[in-house]
């Protein structure tokens, strides 16, 4: 597999993404909400009830740690918008046949499309996480007397489960997009991926699943196994024979 060819395809995907304003805004709104909205919420809560004991601090940090899980939820949902458009858009424009006639392999095309769908949400989420950490540190420094972020939990969170969750979303979108002809339907079906992550978030908030480095690495292991299985399915779905004879 030639990465240079995959990158040519990814660059084309990114050029189209820049021209699709609705998709562009949908990718930046969620990270913006999490990175600015949640720290402001924390600030409002602190200002309203006040922090009077070490237990309050512990409870607050636990909530903030769980908030970081929102970035995983974002990573699992945002790529569906681009990945669905990337494939269904090509189906509707009937541009896959000439693309498949070029000296590229199915894997290179799939990789290029995946990079094109992964990069914008990941960049938006990573930038969002930096803003999130900065604001949380700004609001909490007075109470804690030290900078809470960056720490091991959010570093692991942003570098391991976030990309893996984004990959899950892309692979799922490829598989769904092969079977439907409408971008909205594909996005709606793809966004169902949020449900298990939302459940994990709730379980984390109530303390059943610990949002710790170990907990995140275990989640990453599960995501890795799911991604590997979905990758095989996506490769089988994204073959030129399948695309030209079975895709409708």
């Amino acid at each position, binding site marked *: 597999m030639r990465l240079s*060819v995959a990158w*040519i*395809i990814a660059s*084309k995907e990114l*050029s*189209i993404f820049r*021209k*699709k304003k609705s998709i562009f805004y949908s990718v930046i709104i969620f990270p913006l909400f999490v990175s600015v909205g949640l720290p402001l919420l924390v600030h409002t809560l602190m200002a309203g009830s006040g922090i009077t004991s070490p237990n309050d601090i512990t409870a607050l940090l636990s909530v903030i740690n769980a908030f970081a899980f929102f970035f995983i939820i974002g990573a699992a949902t945002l790529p569906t918008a681009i990945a669905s458009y990337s494939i269904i858009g090509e189906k509707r*424009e*009937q*541009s*896959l*046949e*000439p*693309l*498949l*006639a*070029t*000296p*590229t*392999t199915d894997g290179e095309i799939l990789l290029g499309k995946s990079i094109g769908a992964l990069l914008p949400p990941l960049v938006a989420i990573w930038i969002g996480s930096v803003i999130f950490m900065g604001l949380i540190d700004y609001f909490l420094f007075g109470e804690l007397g030290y900078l809470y972020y960056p720490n091991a939990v959010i570093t692991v969170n942003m570098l391991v489960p976030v990309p893996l969750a984004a990959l899950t979303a892309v692979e799922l979108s490829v598989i769904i997009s092969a079977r439907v002809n409408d971008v909205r339907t594909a996005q709606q079906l793809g966004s169902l991926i949020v449900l298990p992550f939302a459940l994990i978030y709730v379980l984390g908030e109530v303390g059943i699943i610990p949002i710790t480095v170990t907990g995140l690495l275990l989640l990453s292991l599960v995501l890795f196994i799911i991604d590997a299985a979905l990758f095989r399915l996506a490769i089988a779905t994204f073959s*030129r*024979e399948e695309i*030209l*004879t079975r895709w409708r």
Partner: protein
Amino acid sequence: MIDTEGLTRKFGDVTAVDGLSIHVKEGEVFGLLGPNGAGKTTTVRILCCLIGKTGGEARIAGLDTADEADSLKIRQMIGLLPENVGLYDDLSVWQNLDFYAKLYGLGAREREESIGRFLGMLDLREKRDRPAGTLSKGMKQKVAIARALVHDPGVVFLDEPTANLDPEAAKTVRDFILELKKEKRTIFLNTHNLDEAQKLCDRIGILKTHLLRIGTPEELRGSLWGSRTVIQLAEVTGSIVAAVQQQAQNRVVVEDRRLVIDVTDPERENPDLVQAVVGAGGRIQFVRELAPTLEDVYLQIVRENS
């Protein structure tokens, strides 16, 4: 250059192409004629290594379309204009062509030269920065043709290149194909436009799942009937018909004031026929050759096999 032997493709129980054997020489323009669903697009897709075959062999320049390593080499040396243009509507004409030129491995200067050349040849220079989605059908087709040729392929597959185009755009495309023919590229043309096939193709195959007939346009026309001479008279009388029948050995049909006569060697037989008519008192208004059109041939062959 393009060789198939017993090429077969089945989709479940349905046979799309059955035992197709054709051999297209380098520099030849070969047309595949056939009704909708005859297997023309399936054949092109197999030859372009887009889908597999279920039987037989297909080779381009000796390379096997079914071999994974060969298929990449084949796709590098061919250009495809599919039935649907398939441009990226949000990208400009230039960006569409540049993307494909990059995929074919052209360097920056080569891309600039090649794209500029085809935009010029196809009168698209002024549209280079327009989003492809805003172009007319004819313009889009021209961009798609430029896309198929941007890497200067030796073999070009054109699947219904003038379908759904207005007459002016269709003529521009046909003229461009004639230019390609002059450049000695091997062209495989799928069409159900008989006039187009006759004008452009060196040889034609008539396909309806299996190959019904193959030959030059002249050979195909000749296969329906030989040649016919039509003599239009001021008046047809019994003595004139008898004189012609004696000369033409009963291969005469009278249609209104016209005698339609089967001839095997028009240049040798026509002077005698004219002399017989004049000798019998006939006043000749016109003499012309009645040759079967490709449409006559096509319709008869397809009907015989339906």
